[in-house]
């Protein structure tokens, strides 16, 4: 186990070196979350005077955008950690070292955790002086909301990393865009009840829909959304197992087809 931790740490160290050597990369971590937060902050300010619904819960859009950015950054963290190795033609080197595929998964997840914490953390901190809104006002349930979104992002990140391993850099654009396909079903800025009846069960098959419904339950009804949090956690167990399983399965295909030596630009 100690050896495994050392190897997972080595992957994270590699990413730390990459970030340390490039301040634009560090800036990029926080840039988009902050820009999004500012846009939605102003929308909130405007809407608060126009809409009773928004006025009831100041900061609902800022909380929503910060939480949505959590799932996006989390997915991107896994995807970018993997694509760096593809760009560098480093997969062959990595997998003749004692690194196990599951350790690679754990390393990418670790990298994603710190990337997301930094990126979303900076935007969340800036929301306090800019719009007088602190997401910490959600209280302890915020940990559960944040954790559920992180885990779902990891699962999606593993699925796109698997696609990249199988189809090469031709699948890169799908990796960047795929998570946005889930945004309309996640109910980030509107209740799931807004969706057509037939689409609502599909939406509730996503942990994100439960998280955003839960967020609104806390903000509008001041209730702990136990049901939504448990449903999101249960779904996440399945999605993470699916993401890891598909990645490991594609890794096996990559070894059968010689893809580990063929990756790169």
């Amino acid at each position, binding site marked *: 186990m100690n*050896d495994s931790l*050392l*190897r997972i*740490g*080595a*992957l994270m*160290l*590699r990413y730390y*070196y*990459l970030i340390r*050597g*490039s301040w634009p990369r560090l800036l990029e971590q926080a840039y988009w979350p902050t820009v999004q937060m500012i846009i939605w902050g102003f929308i909130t300010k405007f809407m608060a005077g126009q809409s009773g619904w928004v006025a009831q819960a100041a900061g609902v859009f800022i909380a929503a955008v910060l939480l949505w950015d959590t799932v996006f950054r989390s997915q991107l963290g896994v995807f970018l950690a993997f694509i*760096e*190795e593809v*760009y*560098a*033609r*480093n*997969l*062959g*080197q*990595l*997998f*003749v*070292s*004692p*690194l*196990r595929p599951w350790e690679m998964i754990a390393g990418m997840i670790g990298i994603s955790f710190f990337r997301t914490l930094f990126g979303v953390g900076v935007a969340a901190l800036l929301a306090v002086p800019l719009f007088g809104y602190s997401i910490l006002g959600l209280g302890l349930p915020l940990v559960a909301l944040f954790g559920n979104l992180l885990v779902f992002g990891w699962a999606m990140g593993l699925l796109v990393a698997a696609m990249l391993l199988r189809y090469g850099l031709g699948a890169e654009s799908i990796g960047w865009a795929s998570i946005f396909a889930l945004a309309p079903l996640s109910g980030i800025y509107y209740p799931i009840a807004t969706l057509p009846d037939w689409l609502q069960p599909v939406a509730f098959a996503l942990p994100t829909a439960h998280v955003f419904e839960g967020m609104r339950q806390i903000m509008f009804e001041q209730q702990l959304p136990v049901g939504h949090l448990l449903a999101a956690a249960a779904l996440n167990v399945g999605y993470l197992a699916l993401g890891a399983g598909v990645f490991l399965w594609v890794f*096996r295909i990559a*070894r*059968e*087809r*010689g893809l*580990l*030596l063929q990756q*790169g630009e």
Partner: protein
Amino acid sequence: MAEAAIRASGLGKRFGETLAVRSVSFEVARGSICGLLGGNGAGKTTTIAMLLGLLIPTTGKAVLLGADMQRDRYRVLPRLNFSSPYVDLPQRLTVRENLTVYAQLYGVRARRVRIAALADELALEAFIDRPYRSLSAGQKTRVALAKALLNEPELLLLDEPTASMDPDTADRLRRYLAAYAHRSGASILLASHNMQEVERICDDAVILRQGEVVAQAAPAELIRRYGGRDLEQVFLDIARGQERLAG
């Protein structure tokens, strides 16, 4: 009798309709340096990838340091290493950072000491804190070799290690590899197109043609057996299908 460092038994690989390696069987004795020779497309890189378990063979079996590479590769991977022009290292990291990451992946203790020793032995000091991407092809090859030696491997698989080097650097590297094998008792499998290199440092040579082993013996024995001027002549005759046994 000690288990061979490498035992390849009927290794074959098919990619769809393409037969990349027909059937490769050979052994590399412990403590020896073995050249793996063959023209372009003969199957050298595919064979090395199958030996390492990076590629799952369609047929046959590879046993390295006593471990079946399909079932038990993680048991021996810490004792192996590899370098190839078909893989690279992260471009934006410095040489020192790359070596530090790989030293940790291989569980090397006293990493700084080991990296300093390799930097000295392979003359990396002048560029060890430069980004890997800024290095010349020859410097990159030396760094790749340093990475391959980080864990003081018992078995080293090198794919064309001197291909991009000037004659002086290549000569130093060959001396270094021979001395390393002698000093540590390590075994080396060296895929190369440089016949003089193979003649000079290899105890044994395996020649591939169209995905099959067509000859295996010590370089001097191959020259004697096929009656060539040198190993290059023997290689050319075999590669062109014009070989005939002498006497």
